[in-house]
């Protein structure tokens, strides 16, 4: 896109200045029902119109373009293309590689949010309400320390996380095998074991890295949500004889369900992309393409094979899968809340 940005921003500031002037000089109370007053028009232009223009121009329009390109054989380096109907879609679903990538992404979209949310929720509970059962409701001793430490990975850029773990997983010199080979009895199995090079371990190892990077952040998110729950609820639950697990299940979880939903959608989107992690850990798609993601296949098809039409088709599929995922999460959440009558 070469959207004329200078015009937009210039117009915005001019309009903003106009809005201020108009607001100051407009006589108060005169003709309150008149709809075409310039101040209001300008105000609406600034607050709604311009964002809308930007949104339409930079989000919706490229979307539509990608959909159109997905129906052509565009090679990417000229402005000529032929309309080929749905044959790109037929191609990517029969070429044997893209369906694998879809499968891998679905595995990621199921496991990454599930494990991350459970883990970070449990950790958040421990540092907020999991402490001593006498006195005020509080977390474990030293909980603020755990909170800070577990947040650390989130401050590292994803690509750095990928590079670090690629080194840790290195078969010959990696830290992981360096430790495991010294474990008695099982140590010999890990001599030169290629964590990222074996079908059975490449995906789990990659999932672990993604979760490692996100648990701290979502823990902090849940901590904030749990802190917003009135302490009386916990006191009441405790008086009623609820133990820690029961409190977690019946008090904390229902109260933070909206946060769980948000976390789930965000994590799902991360998992459906996962490009950065996978590109750092297994740029080739992993053994037998077992860690190849849709975005990696898309990138390869577009920039290594110059088939932008097919790449756009992959992009459209990725968008559809993401929307379906979000709809599923919202649907499930709605079902649960209806059943509980909340």
């Amino acid at each position, binding site marked *: *896109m070469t959207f004329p940005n200078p015009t937009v921003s210039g117009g915005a500031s001019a309009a903003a200045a106009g809005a201020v002037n108009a607001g100051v000089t407009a006589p108060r109370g005169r003709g309150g029902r008149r709809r075409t007053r310039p101040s209001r028009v300008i*105000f*609406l232009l600034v607050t709604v*119109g311009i964002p809308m223009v930007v949104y339409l121009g930079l989000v919706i329009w490229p979307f539509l373009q990608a959909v159109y390109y997905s129906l052509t054989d565009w090679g990417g380096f*000229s402005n000529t293309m032929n309309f080929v109907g749905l044959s790109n879609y037929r191609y990517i679903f029969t070429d044997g590689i893209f369906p694998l990538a879809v499968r891998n992404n679905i595995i990621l979209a199921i496991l990454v949010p599930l494990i991350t949310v459970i883990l970070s929720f449990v950790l958040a509970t421990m540092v907020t309400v999991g402490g001593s059962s006498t006195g005020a409701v509080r977390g474990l001793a030293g909980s603020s320390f755990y909170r800070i430490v577990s947040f650390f990975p989130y401050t590292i850029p994803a690509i750095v996380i990928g590079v670090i773990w690629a080194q840790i997983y290195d078969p010959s010199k990696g830290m992981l095998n360096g430790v495991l080979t010294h474990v008695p009895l099982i140590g010999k199995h890990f001599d030169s*074991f290629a964590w990222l090079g074996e079908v059975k371990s490449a995906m789990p190892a990659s999932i672990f890295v993604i979760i490692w990077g996100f648990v701290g952040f979502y823990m902090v998110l849940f901590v904030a949500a749990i802190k917003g729950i009135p302490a009386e609820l916990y006191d009441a639950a405790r008086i009623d004889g609820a133990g820690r697990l029961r409190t977690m299940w019946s008090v904390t979880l229902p109260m933070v369900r909206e946060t769980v939903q948000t976390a789930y959608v965000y994590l799902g989107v991360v998992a459906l992309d996962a490009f950065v992690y996978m590109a750092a850990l297994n740029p080739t798609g992993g053994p037998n393409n077992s860690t190849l993601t849709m975005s990696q296949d898309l990138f390869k098809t577009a920039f290594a094979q*110059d088939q932008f039409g097919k790449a756009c088709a992959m992009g459209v599929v990725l968008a559809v899968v993401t929307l379906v995922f979000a709809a599923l999460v919202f649907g499930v959440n709605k079902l649960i809340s209806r059943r509980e009558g909340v």
Partner: protein
Amino acid sequence: MTLNDSKVNRRTVMRTALAAGLALPVGGALASCAGGGSSGSKSSGGGSAAPSGSTSADNPFGFTDKSTVDAVIFNGGYGTDYVSFAGQVVMKKYPGSKVKVSPSTQISQQLQPRFVSGNPPDLVDDSGAQAIGVNTIAAQLEDLTPVLEANNYEGTKISDNLYPGVKEAGLVGDKMVVLNYVMTVYGLWYSESLFAANGWTPPKTWDDLLDLGAKAKAKGKYLFVWGQQAASYYQQLLMDSAIKQGGDEVRLGLENLEPKCWSNPTIQAVLAKLEEIVKKGYFKPGGAGTQFTQAQAQWSNDESGIMYASGSWIENEMKSQTKAGFKMTGIPEPVLDTSTSKMPYDALNAAPGEQYIVPSKGKDPNGGKELLRAMLSKEAATNFAKTKLAPTIVKGTVPTDGFGSTALQSQIKMLDAAGSHLFNVRFVSLYGTVQDQLVPWNSFLSGQLDAAGLTKALQQISDKVRNDPSVKKVKIS
């Protein structure tokens, strides 16, 4: 402020937003995006905008003092300073002219919009992992034959000073659209000092390699190492060795994506040897999970592997991770049997590396050619060899001491021994198949896939390209 009493109801908001939202972007956005423009017609006469002087033997492209050249150069292992150096040479010859060299590491992403809008640079070094597939843009590129026909700055015909095969390696159809500037030699690389210390001799055949593998194992070392992104180097080894053994028939089958080309008996015979090497555990295990630079360091620094199949960029690439006194040396790839092979053992896969293209729609394509002409002249070519420790396609720019590099010495020795027996395999880069091929190769080298499985997977990849009507094929002969 008067916001209190201005009743902004939902309807006004929607109406204003719609009006603003529709009116503004349509004009701008419609014309601006990738395929939507009509720039094709405007730019078709791009070349004519440039100042063109009269041409002569000394100035074959009509370069003038007012010419400007816009070059976008891949900033990889060789950097871009050697092009700037050639630019200086041009500017010295034509005082007042300008040569602008812009480095890029993402050629495809950065130049895509410029190609689509009809405003590409005058010269592009289309290289690196994100190079543009030349096949896709061949119709938009200049024929570079006139550059080879021209005289260099010293006054001799450029093509007379080049290694053989330069033109062939740049052909798409019958148009030479690519000029590969750096002479890359594929071979087997080893440490001369390590071999001397152990009394090992460099292998010439696959049986020699198997023997060597056994000897290395006796010393607790592996014959080969590999890394996940570079498993394809062993595909190169397989193809080159089979081509040397079986001749052009093998090469053309692969290049033209023929059905069952991977089942060719010579390829299968070589593959059987490679499989034996894998089965005997002569590859350092774990390569499929090792970053390729790490794997290469296991050879050049730890010496836990004793040989590596690669191109001649390997010396420059591993410069900081090569053991002192390593004495990196290259030898030609092995054949099955030196007495029966169709090509001599000394034959080499040599050519690609740094593919230079001149887009026709640039402001001054002739300026791009002039810059190439300067790069192919002695002064700039010698500068390249000296500073990058790699030979260009221009012959006779490297002294016998190889500027003190054993790897460069061995490259020149290999090239001289090969004479005219140089060949090249192009389909992998033409159709961008390497990413797909890496997958079965990693499985094969780690022993999870046998030779038959590998053959089937590679054939599927070739078949897929052949059967895809949207991919333009390049007939190679």
